[in-house]
């Protein structure tokens, strides 16, 4: 008897359970409110933070002190504004970005690759602010990477969806003491000279290039893209990163670059365990004097000036031919405003303040180590000439002259770095992938990801 009762009741329980589940029956995504981002921001009088107390919500990256230093200074100058800041690792921000922007829209947020966020209408269109504050009169190259066409494609033109706190610059850092040891008094001026220096370092028993390529972060993408820019023009690489129709990474110049990288690998110019080295290990080894060169960016300038004072130099990647055009990965430290942010005007005012306020620009250089954004004739803080920060800032001017700023090939799509560049570069190191195969695989993954979106 008890058994029969039980079965009857469990039927009822099943009904209850299914009832709870029934709520899930609508198609996913269909019933969630879509942010309305299509409306452009007001273009009338320049927006500001007002004088009433206001709390700004920020979502920043852990380990980078610049945004915090800027918000602290901003509050000092505008006491009615306080900041409620949440911090996460960049990888976590990348994974969280869409949901955070949709469910809990921050006023100001450190952004990963923006194409898909724009496609989903999660970011505020900043065209109105650009007109109001005069951002559209800044050098166009500063904002190019932050402009997107309708639906997020292509990048490089169209409406403005984000702004940078500064403009980072990448190239080759080198250890001056080790350079002297192999008789390198000047940074190499051509690719052939760089090859010679690497060979001399190898002969001298040094690690010629300290790089990372372990886990899910294929750091050999740094030397690879630099080699690409050495062998060919920067524009087609940018077209590929910007997802322009018909763009391909599988070009003859890029093949030469990848073959050159393979030559470096086979010659033993990278550490033997490069596939197990992460970014932090690379940094500590380079600071420890274990490598001659390191491909990295000026976000480390301040750090290296402190830890290797006077012993570190910076140069842009040399061109293949003497006097050829130089190019470098150079991208804004991207920040954006959520489409549904409560205090969008104040966030825009803050971004403008970062680029134009004297003290903010000083903080940008001292703490950020990179070139501030802003008008071409804006105030530039002085940096002692013997500091590596001075070299990285000067490199910015060279790149602007040669029109050689590139975004990072890892930023072409949201998943291209972890899913395609990284495993294939790791295979190239292990001799399990050919240069031609690498470019073909990445191109087909890229095409697949664009199609999927």
């Amino acid at each position, binding site marked *: 008897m008890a058994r029969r009762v039980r079965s009857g009741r469990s039927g009822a329980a099943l009904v209850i359970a299914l009832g709870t589940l029934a709520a899930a029956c609508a198609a996913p995504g269909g019933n969630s409110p879509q942010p309305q981002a299509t409306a452009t921001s007001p273009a009338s009088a320049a927006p500001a933070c007002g004088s009433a107390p206001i709390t700004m919500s920020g979502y920043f990256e852990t380990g980078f002190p610049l945004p915090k230093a800027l918000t602290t200074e901003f509050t000092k100058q505008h006491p009615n504004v306080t900041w409620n800041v949440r911090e996460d690792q960049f990888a976590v921000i990348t994974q969280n970005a869409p*949901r955070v922007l949709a469910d809990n829209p921050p006023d100001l947020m450190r952004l990963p690759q923006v194409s898909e966020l724009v496609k989903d209408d999660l970011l505020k269109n900043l065209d109105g602010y650009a007109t109001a504050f005069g951002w559209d009169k800044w050098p166009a190259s500063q904002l190019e990477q932050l402009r997107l066409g309708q639906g997020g494609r292509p990048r490089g033109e169209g409406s403005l969806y984000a702004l940078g706190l500064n403009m980072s610059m990448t190239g080759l850092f080198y250890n001056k003491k080790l350079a002297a040891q192999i008789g390198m008094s000047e940074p190499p001026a051509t690719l052939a000279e760089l090859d010679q220096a690497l060979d001399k370092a190898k002969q001298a028993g040094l690690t010629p290039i300290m790089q990372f390529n372990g886990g899910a972060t294929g750091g050999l993408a740094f030397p690879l893209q630099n080699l690409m820019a050495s062998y060919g023009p920067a524009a087609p690489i940018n077209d590929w990163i910007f997802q322009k129709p018909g763009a391909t990474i599988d070009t003859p110049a890029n093949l030469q670059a990848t073959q050159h990288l393979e030559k470096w690998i086979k010659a033993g110019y990278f550490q033997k365990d490069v596939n197990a080295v992460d970014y932090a290990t690379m940094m500590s080894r380079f600071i420890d004097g274990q490598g001659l060169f390191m491909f990295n960016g000026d976000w480390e300038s301040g750090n290296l000036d402190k830890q290797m004072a006077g012993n570190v130099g910076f140069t842009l990647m040399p061109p293949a031919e003497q006097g050829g055009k130089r190019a470098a990965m150079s991208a804004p430290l991207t920040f954006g405003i959520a489409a549904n942010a409560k205090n969008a005007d104040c966030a825009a005012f803050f971004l403008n303040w970062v680029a134009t306020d004297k003290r903010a620009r000083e903080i940008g250089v001292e703490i950020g180590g990179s070139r501030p954004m802003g008008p071409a004739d804006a105030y530039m803080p002085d940096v002692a000439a013997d500091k590596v920060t001075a070299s990285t800032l000067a490199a910015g001017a060279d790149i602007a002259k040669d029109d050689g700023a590139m975004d990072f090939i890892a930023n072409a799509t949201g998943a291209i770095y972890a899913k395609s560049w990284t495993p294939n570069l790791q295979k190239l190191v292990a001799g399990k992938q050919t240069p031609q195969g690498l470019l073909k695989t990445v191109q087909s993954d890229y095409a697949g990801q664009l199609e999927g979106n």
Partner: protein
Amino acid sequence: MTPRSAHRRPAATRLRGARGLAGWLFILPALAFYTVFVLRPITLTFQYSLYDWNGIGPSTWVGLANYGKVFTDPDLFDSLVNAFQLIVFFSAIPVVLGLAIAATIRRIAASRLALVARTVLFLPQVIPLVAAGIAWSWLLASTGVVNQLLTLAGLSGVTRAWLGDFATALPAVGMIGAWVLLGLCTLLLLAGMSKIDPALYEAARLDGAGPWREFVSITVPSLRQEIAVCVTVTVIAALASFDIVYIATQGGPGNTTMVPGLQIFYLAFSEREVGTASALAMVLMLLVIACALPIQWFAKDGGK
């Protein structure tokens, strides 16, 4: 039907109903949690697996196409193959080694050494997996303790970055798992051994059985239930592994340590292909059930 029985019946039904209702009230909280946190996510995952969806925008119905992708995309399929390779390390080593260690500890049960051995072996189970992963990635680094010991032993030729080498990364991750799960298996098996009737051993010894014979004929058969539990838990740990791999290698180098758990995470949060991620999750769940159920049946039949 007599008046008496007519009276009694409704009373009995009422009583039964009341008692049943009370019983259901008691399990209601648990049932609610189970429904909200287990049944609902499973149902939702199944539903998502039938759509092409990026997690935010509108979704498109694609039927079973995502399941087709799980079995045809080499990246996704390879991660399933890797998970099965991990079973060797996560299950076979801890269970076999655990049996040997438990048998040894039982023989010296009274000594202080047994207590120390038990504690040391169980310690990895107490340490969070993330901490274990970090510690082991240091030990296995090219300048880590493992390579230092090998160099000391004159084996500098075999030293390498164990987690960064295509041939050794998966076994290295497997060894971390074996280290974690060995203590659990040893303790479970040891507990099982303490329930075996000592008279059995005495009888065997009178019949002239040596330690090996005792182990094979008495210890192992008596531990059938415990071994089944060990195998079930470790097989699930191997198939559903995530933390150790995420910390130690993140699936690299070149996807050699990619496991379904990690792949699902990347698909859903980095590639934003929620549909494919959900399909892989459903496949993984069914695989775990398909592996765990036979072990359970085997244990039950053996017990009878």
